[in-house]
């Protein structure tokens, strides 16, 4: 017979742990209990909700694509190159993780706004105005969510055995070929996990979006903004919208667990 480890949890740990669980789970339960189930369908099928949901999904997906295209190379530079000031660079990259999103929105406005450093030039040279457009939503979401992807992919790159890249070099592969044919496939689970995290963060983005992109139904009003607005006018609608976001988040989490997190864990 195999011995089992003593399973008792001391009370000073058990009580706070249970409180923590209650604290995290009760609000979500409350959402389910107070949901106006009978009004669910009429609410959901209203054009305003459909519009906000579609905009949220499209902009979060676009922000994730931009983050992958720019963030994976950045993660490679952080993990593999030997450039000077790499630790400073990493610190800068992670600033948006800890920065209040509203501050991020203000910063974006100062740079890309019509009077902004880059915005004024864009306006003059191309007649492009970014604030209060769907593009602004994608930019705000990318600003807030990309660090999640970069951190995740950098971790995967550090965990991956760099000697595979040595082996590729002895087989005639230059660094770009090695990246495409060896490194990227090796860290694919990490990239996928990072992309899902990034997408979920972008989907829930509120502060930077409302500051930089405003709140215009159809162009910049994403689900979180719609929820906030609805809460002031029609609390029932806010609950329904929240349920939708909750369902999307849970689906994402399940996808992560089954598809990528377990595989990424096995590979590491």
């Amino acid at each position, binding site marked *: 017979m195999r011995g089992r480890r003593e399973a008792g949890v001391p009370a000073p740990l058990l009580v706070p742990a249970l409180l923590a669980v209650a604290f995290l789970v009760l609000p979500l339960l409350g959402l389910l209990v107070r949901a106006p189930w009978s009004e669910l369908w009429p609410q959901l099928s209203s054009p305003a909700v459909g519009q906000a949901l579609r905009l949220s999904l499209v902009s979060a997906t676009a922000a994730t694509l931009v983050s992958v295209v720019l963030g994976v190379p950045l993660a490679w530079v952080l993990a593999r190159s030997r450039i000077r000031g790499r630790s400073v660079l990493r610190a800068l990259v992670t600033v948006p993780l800890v920065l209040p999103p509203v501050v991020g929105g203000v910063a974006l406005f100062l740079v890309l706004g019509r009077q902004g450093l880059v915005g004024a030039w864009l306006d003059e040279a191309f007649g492009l105005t970014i604030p209060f457009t769907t593009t602004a939503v994608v930019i705000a979401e990318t600003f807030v969510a990309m660090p999640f992807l970069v951190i995740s992919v950098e971790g995967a790159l550090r965990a991956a055995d760099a*000697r595979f890249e040595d*082996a590729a070099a*002895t*087989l*005639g592969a230059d660094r770009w070929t090695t990246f495409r*044919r060896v490194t990227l*496939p*090796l860290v694919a689970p990490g990239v996928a996990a990072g992309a899902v995290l990034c997408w979920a963060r972008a989907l829930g983005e509120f502060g930077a979006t409302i500051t930089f992109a405003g709140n215009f139904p159809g162009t910049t009003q994403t689900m979180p903004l719609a929820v906030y607005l609805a809460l002031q006018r029609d609390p029932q609608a806010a609950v329904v919208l929240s349920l939708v976001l909750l369902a999307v988040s849970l689906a994402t989490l399940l996808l992560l667990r089954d598809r990528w997190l377990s595989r990424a864990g096995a590979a590491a």
Partner: protein
Amino acid sequence: MSLAASVAVARGPMTVGLDVAVADGEVLAVLGPNGAGKSTLLRVLAGLLRPDDGRVVVGTDVWVDVAAGVHLPAHERRLGMVFQDHLLFPHLSVTDNVAFGLRTRGVRRGPARAAAREWLARVGVADLADRRPGQLSGGQAQRAALARALVGDPALLLLDEPLSALDARTRLTVRAELRRHLADYGGSTVLVTHDPVDAMALADRVVVVEEGRVVQAGTPADVSRHPRTDYVARLVGLALLPGTGEGGTVRLEGGGRVAVAEQTAGPVFVAVRPESVALYPSRPDGSPRNVWPARLVAATPHGSTVRCELAGEVPLIADVTATAFAELGLAPGTPVWASVKASEVAVYDR
């Protein structure tokens, strides 16, 4: 193609400074303990590490010339490398792993895969061509790794401890196969190992490296018979005793005298094989010239015999049968008498 390399790399307090030359079709074994600089040499030859000084020339091509500012990147060198833990790419099939080097050098997919399959057949793993490396045993993976290194007909083949990750039985068969493939291979081979058996079985020549320097070079037979450092002597299981020749005897540096069969003079090494040392519970009768009191320090089973380490005026290693070991009642600390015939003692200049 022939290899001529002279390499200097500063590694912390130690400087690795190694000169090696390997002819066409020749296999050079670089033998040495961990941290001696063997892998550093291999990484410089492969182009994975820039040396602080030196030259690497393969055939007529200059791969490295630090003074002239030449450093050919790894992927532009015509070489094949086999790593200790095979490093087959886990996301590619065995065939695609072997075809990888051909593909990067511009061979089309079809011909590359055909050549890969042919090589997999040559190393005896043709039936595993469609598997992933994770589904292969250690021996199978190392065979596929050899195919991957040789498929592009490299000018230089580098083997980095190719057998040390394998279990003892697999190592035996893979070693024999490797020997056959090396005989067929026309380029130069550098084999890095810390296992003297690999060096003896596979190499035409051996250089022994300790602390970044070549301490001995020669044929495998010469190095194993006449070790020049304690490290090599211990590897090949000899007791190595430095001393001064005085005619028919050698006065050892550690004290004591050994009678030898030849006339010697000046600084010499005395090497004694463990199987030529006989042990007695008391001073043996008759008048053997080499008999010394000693004390057993350690005993380890070694095949069908027990290898006994002896301390005393003349430190020796003795192999005795398990029966003899029991009859002598040997235990650590037991005093014994050790004797060796003068004709069994090898003596050579230091």
